């Protein structure tokens, strides 16, 4: 057997190949990507060391605090070496809420996309509920679930639910009709088409939904954890503000940024592998 990458494209319609030095290209891409963050860091450094503002700590102080937050041994206060506890608490809510949302939204989306009766019954309801922002649910979820983890969990669920649902519906409804014809003339008809045509054809769209959903889950977690939970990155940020510990606020933000980014990269890598057949799906 010949492997796919080496046997790829045909001579007469070959897409242009990348330049011959891939490592140099990657280094250049990385350098370009670092320009804006580098400039911002510089601005932060200058602004704080030149005393343009006294409201935020210098990058150096923040970095030092980050080390203490992660490993302890510098300030040894209530927040020293507690990063992993907060991170785990947040991650369990993000992934728990996200998985629950996926478990509900995927089958619902498949139903609404494929069965007209389900669409007519459920679609108007979801269209009505959708414009309500997740943050507007906060007070109600506090009333229903009290102050605490359940409330955060339910907000993450709501945040991840709609992107997954809507993209699944879209993917399932927009399968190229020719593919159904092709399948039926090859002897695959009726319900058998669901697994052999609908699901694979909708996969790119479903994946987009999952990725957006997970992104929103990270987005919502901070709001969710402001509802009085003792642990979690959102709680750390709020506590930092209450205690006027700005470096803690910034540390919490940085951690969320990095973890959210890594989490997105992992989902994207899985997606790129599963969707390697799709010419339009490369992140």
């Amino acid at each position, binding site marked *: *057997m*010949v*492997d*796919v990458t080496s*046997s*790829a*494209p*045909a*001579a*007469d*319609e070959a897409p242009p190949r990348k330049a011959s030095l891939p490592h140099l290209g990657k280094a250049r891409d990385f350098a370009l990507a670092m320009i804006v963050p580098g400039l911002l860091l510089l601005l932060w450094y200058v602004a704080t060391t030149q005393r343009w503002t006294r409201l935020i700590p210098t990058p150096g102080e923040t970095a030092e605090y980050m080390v203490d937050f992660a490993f302890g041994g510098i300030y040894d206060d209530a927040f020293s070496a507690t990063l992993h506890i907060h991170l785990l608490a947040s991650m369990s809510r993000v992934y728990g809420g996200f998985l629950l949302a996926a478990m509900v939204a995927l089958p619902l989306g498949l139903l609404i996309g494929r069965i007209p009766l389900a669409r007519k019954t459920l679609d108007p309801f979801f269209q009505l509920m959708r414009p309500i922002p997740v943050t507007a649910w906060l007070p109600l979820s506090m009333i229903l679930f009290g102050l605490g983890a359940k409330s955060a969990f339910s907000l993450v669920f709501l945040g991840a639910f709609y992107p997954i649902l809507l993209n699944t519906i879209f993917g399932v409804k927009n399968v*190229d009709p*020719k*593919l159904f*014809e*092709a*399948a*039926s*003339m*090859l*002897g*695959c*008809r009726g319900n*058998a088409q669901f697994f*052999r*045509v609908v699901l*694979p*054809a909708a*996969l790119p769209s479903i994946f987009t939904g999952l990725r957006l959903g997970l992104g929103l889950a990270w987005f919502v977690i901070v709001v969710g954890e402001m509802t009085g939970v003792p642990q979690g990155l959102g709680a750390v940020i709020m506590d930092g503000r209450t205690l006027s510990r700005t470096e803690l606020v910034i540390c919490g933000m940085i951690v969320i940024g990095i973890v959210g980014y890594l989490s997105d990269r992992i989902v994207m890598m899985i997606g790129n592998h599963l969707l*390697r*057949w*799709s*010419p339009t799906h490369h992140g």
Partner: protein
Amino acid sequence: MAETDTLSAPLPIIDIRNVSKTFWLGEQKIEALSGANLQIRKGEFICLIGASGCGKSTLLRIMAGFEQPTAGEALMWGKPITEPGPSRGMVFQDYALFPWLTVRNNIAFGPKSQGRSTGEVKDICDRFIEMVGLQKFANAYPHQLSGGMRQRVAIARVLANDAELVLMDEPFGALDAMTRERLQDELLEIWERTKLTVVFVTHAIEEAIFLADRVVVMSPGPGRIDSDNRLTLPRPRDVASPEFNEIRRDLSARLHSHHAKKAA
């Protein structure tokens, strides 16, 4: 060239009896096909030719079972065609390959649907991948292939399913001239080797004369069958020969007379 004989003969593989098809486009009624009659014998290579709107694709889709006639009957081996099925394979102009399946698995789709065993499926795939010369690309995905290669996969996919009748809807219309000629040669070779029956829709006169045993000329407004021309020119046909050109002139005149009538 002679008009088709209407003498009694064994059961035709396809029998189109007085078939009409109307569509509704909002309030407007469109007569895509009006009173078409056509009999196709096993092993024949038929080209349907005509301007757009003459109903040639509609007729093909009725034979495939994708559409039902509004009036009349479409029969295969004497039985009404009610739904698409593996005995009638369709090759689409835009390939309609499954983009998530490799070349091999696209070809395997039909045999797997028939419930063939893994070993059988593998043998079938090997045979037809070889027939269309895509051994090196067996594990490539459709988007990695050129148009000509994709159409080869589409043809192999239909053959792998043991189709008796291959329906082709302007299959080479989107290809460049070189690829098109090569695929025409390959198709004829496969047809001669496998004794298939082929119904091939095209709007290119030359392509029709190069390929067909019978060229069925259709005309629009409402779509109908105009003439049925049997070609006796021996294969391989030389597109530059005087005989070829004579046929082309004749068919061209038939096609264009309808344009003139329609414009008047």
